[in-house]
């Protein structure tokens, strides 16, 4: 087992038991590798790397319960990254087929002066477009850092409705990204 595998696995196991610091560290360790993975494979669309990276992170987060502890974690992560990459390339191909002429020089130039670490798609805006039953819990718990009990009180919802709202809301966000692209 590689060091990376072991380290990530240790972090994720702690994260799944509710250790948020370990989870943040896990995601940060993942970001660095994922960005390199995607950049190597999206050489023709460098300005989409950060968008796809964010989409993949969201997918890892939403699907983290599908990880089977008896299997290598890096294989699971790789399968998600590959799935999202292929999905993105397919959407891109369709979009270009519909809208963009083949000799699209201005877009290439425009892409060059952008900071590569800036996402083009703004997740904050997409979050705001979610229905209130999803947006409220996400804003309170995930953005302002309230506890579930505090969020439930502020939103006048039950605690389980807040948890479900966060869970479904993040899935709805992933769906929005998918449909938009």
């Amino acid at each position, binding site marked *: 087992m590689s060091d990376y595998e072991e380290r990530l696995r240790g972090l994720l196991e702690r*994260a799944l*038991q*509710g*250790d*948020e*610091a370990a*989870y*943040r560290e896990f*995601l*940060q360790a993942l*970001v660095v590798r994922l960005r390199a993975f995607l950049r190597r494979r999206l050489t023709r669309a460098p300005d989409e790397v*950060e968008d796809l*990276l*964010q989409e993949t*992170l*969201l*997918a890892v*987060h*939403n*699907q983290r*319960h*599908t*990880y*089977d502890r008896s*299997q290598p974690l890096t*294989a*699971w*992560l*790789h*399968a*998600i990254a*590959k*799935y999202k990459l292929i*999905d993105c390339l397919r959407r891109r191909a369709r979009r270009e087929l519909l809208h963009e002429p083949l000799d699209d020089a201005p877009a290439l130039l425009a892409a060059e002066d952008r900071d590569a*670490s*800036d*996402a083009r798609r*703004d*997740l*904050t805006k997409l979050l705001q477009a979610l229905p209130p039953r999803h947006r409220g819990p996400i804003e309170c*718990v*995930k*953005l302002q*850092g309230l*506890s*579930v009990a505090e969020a439930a009180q502020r939103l006048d919802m039950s605690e*389980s409705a807040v*948890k*479900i709202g*966060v*869970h479904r809301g*993040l*899935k709805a966000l*992933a769906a929005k990204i*998918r449909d938009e692209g």
Partner: protein
Amino acid sequence: MKTERLVAMLARGAGAEMRSAAAHRVPIALGLALVPTFALMQILYGVRPTLAVDSARWMFWAKLAFVLAIGLAGWAAALRLGRPGAVLARLRWALAAPLAAMWLLAAAELLPAAEGGRAALVLGQTWLECPLRIAILSLPAFLAVFWAMREAAPTRLRLAGAAAGLCAGGVGAFAYTFHCPELAASFLGLWYVIGMLIPAAAGAWLGPRLLRW
């Protein structure tokens, strides 16, 4: 939103989020689907009056075991494929074994049979309507399994869809055994298999649309 901020957002309160898994949803969904499945079977075709008599024959139970084994293998395969990076591995054998067993029984039936009797064994009395009826009865389970699979994360959408469809086909065939009078292995090994493959093919076709995440 910067990626850094997304990481912070995802990590915050992550321990408190609801967890749900396809593994928990599939049995619930299938259990609920059994009610409309059997209602549909009773309304459209009806329980066979000679069911009690037939149940004394071992082939009746072999037939039940056959469709249940295929349905369960489909279910197990769908759940396995619902995890990123998972491979079917030995589950392939779980899918192939009931099929091979039924074909062996069919061969044992057909080889000693007289020339003219073979067609009668294979065609039975209901070969024409059998596959479509199984496909119709698998509809409630099809909807249920695909609903449950929304909590899964398959990376091979066609294969996962086919497995989910096969599971539904097993449920449909199970319900149909309460109506169907056929007990020849030669019949079951062909028409029942086609009947269960119809929802499997529909699943493979719809998988890329319904199972995306």
